[in-house]
């Protein structure tokens, strides 16, 4: 099989098959587990044939395009490092699958668990097999997401969810930093492909963005690998089921960080910043976590802190930045994965059997489960760095690297001393794990009586412990080949000479190991006063701190939002006006403006009078706005003056429209005013009135000034076309009307659509609305008894046909003279409204069509239909036709299809006016509401 194909296939299978356990669950939990095993085995089966090539030093590459323009490609890479990690991921994955089958005995959602496990495994494989760095980020964040789901597997427990959220916040947040770092890295190199990136180390370190990029990438690394000060999520994550811990927190997830250190080592390392940042963080983490691990009462917590400490160790090794330290780092990755996975599983067995993880209660288990105990003791030995176990080997290499590191020439003792201290602590907490759990008297008050777990639950631990021994005793034979290719892949250069052996003679590292062992045991012996001392220290619970920080953030957000947005519409409006004024002012003042003031018209007396009237009326509205009826009267005056202004400046159509709209608006406002309070209360907030007045004044001055400049600036317009084309092209001499129904008929279609919706809105909003009808007016008078004043009722009857006649007249002449469908519609509407006013809603409604929406539709259909008709003839929508018809006697009759369009406008307007006003009027008809 084509190796590149296999490479892709591994991930495709892993990802696409991850829902399989969920689907198989219905056939029983065994099937779910089997499906998981099968998927993992399939991946392994695809991987194994590739091993020989990789062991020969080949780097396998496979690439498919995904988002090429943006540097994201589905390119994969299998080299020594990737292979080593893949084997760890799949191998330990299989063991965890088996283990979880027993551990999660009695849980319902094994299928979900396995699916998430597979999803996680796929993401992890993706991380280690990515050739494209952006792809790596994709999988990286996917591990965060899937681990979030895995940690919160016990989703109904608050602790689990909190732990998952903390993990997500830290690792996901770090992932964002990594994302940014990778984007910069790709920018520096010009490619996101690792092959290019790894070859560009010099270029990268020389780039101006190197430091910031490195810090961003390291943020990703440190958060994922739980380095101080981001370590706190990992102990929290122990709320996850133990198989998850065994997998994520020993071999995989947390290793993604150090994997990336190794992966990018050739590209990023080799600078002082790298050395100080990476080794410093690693050293601090190593020591601090080891110190904390020693004080845990929860043995899983102990393991968690030990994990952090070991990750610190590995980080430190990469930070030391010598070829051998890198080898040691890679080696310790493997060793730690093996012994820590087995330890977590063993711890899980104890937890499973005892029902608690508190070492103050869990004692002397050796006699209850000797085999498990033995396995755990061996693994813990490895963790402590006991000879003949794998942990010893890498720790020896670590000790060796600390001795005589080039950076500390003056204080060369410092680093070895530090390493030894860390070794002492490691031995101390390992001792504690062994002694406190398996010896140290008898169990205290355990929920159940512990015994050996099922045979196959222990099997994974056995396999792993066997490997500890195997590697520890026969390193050259067992681990060296893979270590060589992995380390080679990390360094991207020939490996330094090193020799894996149990015995290197009585050298400094060995002395350090001995010191660590002795010191560690000594420390454990003195534990009681130390615990007593530690217990007196204030404890900080990361989860509480996190949750409090989150709550504080939420509170801050709420306070800020409440401060910004108090729900006051007036504030929104004030902000809007202020924003527009500021922006407009900026745009205006930031441009040269030398408006040549061309005053073309001199003011005459009549216009001055009109302006004076307008001012008085405007003053009237503002000063009387709290007396609402009076304000309406003044508003009406302003409407009249505006109409007169339109007349004055040659806009008869506008004047007509303005006048009729004014009438309808007043009726509308009065209908509403019946229910609204007749007066507004006085405002006491003076600063606010001042603010509003200032805003209003600025707006007025602004628009007024803009109007003046506009009016006095000459301009070029396209309107000559309309004047020239109205008669020949549009068949009408009222150019405004021709524009409305022809040149820009589409606008008008939209406009009547808006109107039609207002009609529908009346039904939609006012339907079944219940409003309290006042029984007296604002000054306390009861309403007059007579519902329909006689003269009004009687005179509106002859007026109706007369007004209809006027509206027909205005409608028909609109294309050539002022008028048209809209005004005609309003006139008809008002004529009909008059019937409501005069004789009441009962009288009028009974005589008018009931299904007004149908008329709306008819109107819209007229306007749209005549437009569509032209489409059928092959012309664009709304193309009009017009012509002259010469009839005997009648003479020349002008016909324009635009008239049908206008008819549509007419129908819509009439229907809408009736719908709105009648629906408003109906509000009072609801019997019983009117008290």
């Amino acid at each position, binding site marked *: 099989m084509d190796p590149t194909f296999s490479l892709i296939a591994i991930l495709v299978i892993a990802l696409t098959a991850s829902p399989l356990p969920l689907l198989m669950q219905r056939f029983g939990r065994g099937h779910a587990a089997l499906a998981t095993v099968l998927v993992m085995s399939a991946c392994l089966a695809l991987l194994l044939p590739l091993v020989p090539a990789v062991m020969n030093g080949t780097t396998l590459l496979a690439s498919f395009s995904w988002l090429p323009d943006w540097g994201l490609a589905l390119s994969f890479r299998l080299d020594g490092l990737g292979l080593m990690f893949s084997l760890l991921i799949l191998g330990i994955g299989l063991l965890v699958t088996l283990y979880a089958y027993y551990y999660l005995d009695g849980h319902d959602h094994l299928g979900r668990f396995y699916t998430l496990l597979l999803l996680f495994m796929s993401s992890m494989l993706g991380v280690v097999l990515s050739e494209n760095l952006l792809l790596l980020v994709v999988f990286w964040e996917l591990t965060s997401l899937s681990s979030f789901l895995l940690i919160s597997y016990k989703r109904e427990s608050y602790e689990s969810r909190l732990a998952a959220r903390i993990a997500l916040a830290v690792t996901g947040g770090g992932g964002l930093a990594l994302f940014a770092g990778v984007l910069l890295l790709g920018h520096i190199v010009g490619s996101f492909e690792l092959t290019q990136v790894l070859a560009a180390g010099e270029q990268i370190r020389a780039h101006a963005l190197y430091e910031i990029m490195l810090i961003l990438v390291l943020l990703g690394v440190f958060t994922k690998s739980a380095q101080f000060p981001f370590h706190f999520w990992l102990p929290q994550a122990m709320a996850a089921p133990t198989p998850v811990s065994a997998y994520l927190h020993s071999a995989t997830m947390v290793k993604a960080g150090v994997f990336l250190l190794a992966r990018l080592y050739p590209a990023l390392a080799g600078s002082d910043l790298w050395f100080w940042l990476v080794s410093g963080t690693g050293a601090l983490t190593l020591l601090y976590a080891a110190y904390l691990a020693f004080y845990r009462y929860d043995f899983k917590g102990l393991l968690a802190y030990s994990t952090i400490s070991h990750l610190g160790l590995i980080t430190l090794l990469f930070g030391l930045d010598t070829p051998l330290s890198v080898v040691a780092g890679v080696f310790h990755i493997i060793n730690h994965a093996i012994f820590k996975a087995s330890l977590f599983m063993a711890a899980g067995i104890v937890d499973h059997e005892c029902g608690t993880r508190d070492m103050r209660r869990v004692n002397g288990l050796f006699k209850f489960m000797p085999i498990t105990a033995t396995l755990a003791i061996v693994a813990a030995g490895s963790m402590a760095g006991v000879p003949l176990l794998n942990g010893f080997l890498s720790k020896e290499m670590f000790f060796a690297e600390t001795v005589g590191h080039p950076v500390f020439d003056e204080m060369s003792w410092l680093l070895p001393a530090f390493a030894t201290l860390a070794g002492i602590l490691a031995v101390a907490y390992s001792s504690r794990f062994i002694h406190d759990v398996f010896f140290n008297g008898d169990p205290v008050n355990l929920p159940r009586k512990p015994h050996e777990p099922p045979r196959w639950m222990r099997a994974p631990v056995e396999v792993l412990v066997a490997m500890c021994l195997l590697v520890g005793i026969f390193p050259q034979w067992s681990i060296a080949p893979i270590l060589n290719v992995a380390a080679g892949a990390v360094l991207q250069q020939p490996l330094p000479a090193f020799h894996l052996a149990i015995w290197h003679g009585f050298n400094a590292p060995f002395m350090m190991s001995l010191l660590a062992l002795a010191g560690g045991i000594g420390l454990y012996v003195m534990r009681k006063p130390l615990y007593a001392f530690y217990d007196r220290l204030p404890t900080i619970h990361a989860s509480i701190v996190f949750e409090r920080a989150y709550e504080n*953030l939420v509170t801050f*957000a709420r306070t800020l939002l409440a401060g910004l947005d108090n729900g006051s519409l007036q504030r929104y409006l004030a902000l809007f006006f202020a924003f527009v004024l500021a922006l407009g002012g900026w745009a*205006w003042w*930031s441009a040269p403006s030398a408006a040549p003031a061309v005053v073309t018209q001199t003011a005459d007396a009549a216009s001055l009078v009109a302006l004076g009237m307008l001012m008085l009326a405007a003053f009237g509205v503002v000063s009387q706005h709290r007396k609402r009826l009076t304000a309406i009267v003044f508003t009406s005056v302003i409407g009249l003056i505006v109409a007169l202004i339109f007349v004055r400046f040659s806009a008869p159509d506008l004047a007509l429209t303005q006048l009729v709209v004014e009438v309808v608006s007043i009726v509308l406002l009065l209908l509403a005013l019946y229910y609204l309070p007749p007066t507004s209360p006085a405002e006491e907030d003076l600063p606010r009135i001042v603010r509003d007045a200032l805003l209003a004044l600025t707006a007025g001055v602004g628009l007024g000034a803009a109007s003046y400049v506009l009016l006095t600036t000459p301009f*070029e317009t396209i309107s000559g076309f309309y004047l020239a084309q109205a008669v020949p092209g549009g068949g009408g001499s009222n150019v405004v009307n021709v524009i409305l129904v022809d040149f820009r008929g589409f*606008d008008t279609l939209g406009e009547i659509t*808006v109107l039609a919706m207002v009609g529908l*809105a009346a039904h939609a909003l006012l339907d079944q609305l219940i409003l309290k009808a006042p029984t007296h007016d604002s000054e306390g008078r009861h309403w007059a008894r007579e519902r329909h004043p006689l003269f009004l009722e009687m005179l509106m009857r002859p007026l109706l046909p007369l007004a209809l006649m006027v509206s027909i007249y205005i409608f028909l002449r609109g294309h050539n003279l002022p008028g048209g469908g809209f005004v005609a519609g309003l006139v008809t509407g008002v004529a009909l409204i008059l019937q409501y006013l005069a004789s009441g809603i009962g009288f009028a409604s009974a005589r008018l069509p009931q299904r007004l929406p149908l008329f709306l539709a008819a109107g819209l259909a007229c306007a*749209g239909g005549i437009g569509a008709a032209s489409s059928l003839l092959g012309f664009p929508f709304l193309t009009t036709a017009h012509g002259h018809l010469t009839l005997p006697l009648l003479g020349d009759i002008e016909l324009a299809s635009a008239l049908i369009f206008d008819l549509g406008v007419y129908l819509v307007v009439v229907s809408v006016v009736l719908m709105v006003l009648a629906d408003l009027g109906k509000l009072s008809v609801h019997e019983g509401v009117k008290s």
Partner: protein
Amino acid sequence: MTQHAAILPILIPFAAALLQLAAKGYGITTQRSIGLVAVLLGVCAATWLVWLADTGGVLVYALGNWAAPFGIVLAVDRLAAMMVLLTALLSAAALLYASAGFDQRGRHFHPLFQLQIVGLQGAFLTGDLFNLFVFFEVMLLASYVLLAHGGGMARTRAGLAYVVLNLAGSALFLIALGMLYGTLGTLNLADVALRLQTLDDNHALARLACILLIAVFALKAALLPLSFWLPHAYAAAGAPVAALFVIMTKVGIVSIMRVQAIAFAPASATADLLDGWLLPLALATVLLAALGALAAPRLRDLTAWLVLASAGTLLITPVFPQAQVSAAALYYLLQSTFVAAALFLVAALVAERRGELSDLFQSGPRLHAPWLGFAFLLAAASAVGLPPFAGFLGKLMLLSALRDSGQATAIWFVLLFAGLLLMLALGKNGGRLFWERSPHHPHAIAVPAGWRRAIAVTLLVSPALLLALFARPVADYTARAAAQLHQPQAYISAVLGENRATVQREVRP
């Protein structure tokens, strides 16, 4: 028929609305059938339009057979076609959802829904600024009524703010248009662009007109400090309405992008109009939205803030008028629209099952709807920009495209930090909603979602995955759309045709 392709996305819903009005008496099934057939046809027409726009140049449709700049033209470039298709898909999903019963909670839902589509599609298609105003109004009025659909005090209150602010916005739009016409003597965008290029020194009015136009769009796009209406309005709207509303902020954003790219040419008097103020405000919008998401008490509120966050994110992009930035923005726009719409629907379905707890972030009963949780997860992950979903790719493109903007540090920080905040908010509250159990509410209300609503949610959620899976063709399309957008001369030539040189203008004092 091909020549009419451009108008079909407007005419189909228009005709459907008329039919529905005429068929009022025939019951809800008829209404639904007409509506669903119309949205389906709309999707087909939009797809066709995308195909046409992608194969040819700018499609120009002269309404009434009056050429631009005299008549109104629809101008369909790749961007317009894409937005039309997005609207069509969104409306199809929203209508499917609404047809499961929401449509009966008030009157005239169906015709208003179709007219809302008319407004949206018209706004995306038109090449005339005043016509844009008209379609804005169509869109807004439909949205006003749809927002109130179903009743309730929250809706009325939020609606009032929404309506009044938008009315103020409409007034401003008219002022801007009056000023623009009074300065440049034309209303056609292409013609405006042409005139802006040849403006003499005295161009303060033109600048003022253009900035006011931008302010109007910024209101629709909910730029801080004009954004406060959005969370209230969107959270108050019924789920399918809110889902459809998601596209409305995009109308503002696309309008800004378009005006910026076509009319604010580098050499024109308006070239610097977006500089200096838009970026900080857009970034502040993103941060505010992220904080809002943290503070949100319900999923629908949170989703509304997500809409705002994506609006803020998109509003960064017009500041940097490069094809690459726009290409990234358009991809991001697609995914953010679908995802937010999906979350609105999910919120409603969750609320329905939780009864009085609604979609409040409080512990409640087990929902017995893993698919709902899955849909939420998918949409939420995409919304916060987690890979491998489309949201991540969108963010990747945006960050890459804006890397050389000169403001990359601030932009990157804000986008990534906001992403983190959103992740925290969704992580915490999603857990509460779907996982946390309350002893007081042991049992969820068993409401079957029904096939319509299930399909609707699927339709809206799946793009989170599909847009990522088929990222290349989609991104290529947005790249082509962006490239076309940033070639204003081609657009201008297409729209003005032969009139370009010979537009008769008369000088008026």
